[in-house]
């Protein structure tokens, strides 16, 4: 699996954690044609609104750990 696919999978898992599987499935389809930076921005945006900026940044950091973007 390439790094972009790993990022997409990690992003979808993170969305599923907080928003549930139904929301995550829709985002999975949406992320297919999105760049890595767009995926990170998108996840950061919905998470910041829902779990607060500080927590969202923590989760994004964990999500991108070990990935070469």
């Amino acid at each position, binding site marked *: 699996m390439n790094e972009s696919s790993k990022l997409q999978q990690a992003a979808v898992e993170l969305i*599923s*954690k*907080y*928003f*549930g*599987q*139904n*929301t995550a499935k*829709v*985002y999975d*389809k*949406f992320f297919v*044609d999105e760049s890595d930076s767009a995926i990170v921005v998108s996840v950061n945006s*919905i*998470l*910041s*609104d*829902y*779990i*607060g*900026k*500080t*927590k*969202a940044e923590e989760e994004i950091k964990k999500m991108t750990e070990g990935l070469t973007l």
Partner: protein
Amino acid sequence: MIIRRYIFLVILLVTSIAYFLSPSDRALPIQTLYQVISIGAALVALYASRIYGFKSANGRAIILIAAGLVVWAIAEIVWYVLQSFMGNNDFPTVTDIFFLLAYPIWGFGIYQGFTTAEVKLVRVRKSLLTLVFSASIILTILVSYFGIYQAYDPNADLLANIVAIFYGLGDLVLIILSLLTILVASEYRGGKLASFWKTMAAGFFVFLVADILFAMYRDQFMADIKPYAYIDLMWLSGYLLIAYAMLENYAHVYLVQKQIRLKLQQRR
């Protein structure tokens, strides 16, 4: 959101007026009103929680809390039928199984929420921690005295005493749960999920105060003496607060889903 908030406030206001005006708060019409609202709130909570699915960590917490509320609503229905239609005022009854079952369900739910949030105590404001712990100590003393020590009745049988004491222990659990919900809310500071957990904390706190007052004034409550009969309004407030939090949360997640589906459609 404002309209939803006002709907819940209006329901509470109308119910309060009905209680104040009714010559008897244990009478069938008032108790039926209580049942309709408590069951309605529980069903709203359950419906709203479904948007997540059980595979989501956050969703599991929310679904379990809603399930606990439904179990309490079932207990209310059983108590309503036994008291209002069968004239049964015995203690304990099958009602108590459902009331007590809600506490561990809520416990699992809030623990799931706490672990999902990965609360870091060092980040919680010291003033908030001090306030919460102080309140917890006061409530623990009240519950331990009225809900456990005074719950023991030397004239009652062993089963009645065990069940009575278990209610007190359940309220001690509720104190811990309320504390955990405040810590979880603190972790999501600035986000919509923080509002959800704060409202949950308010709901559980109101349940706890109602339980303590019931333990203190059970005889007066059962004798339908005002203002003790108004303890019902506190339980109803708890139901409505939790249902409101669930509905607001549902509305947000639904909006997120709607927005991303729209973006997908626009792309095609």
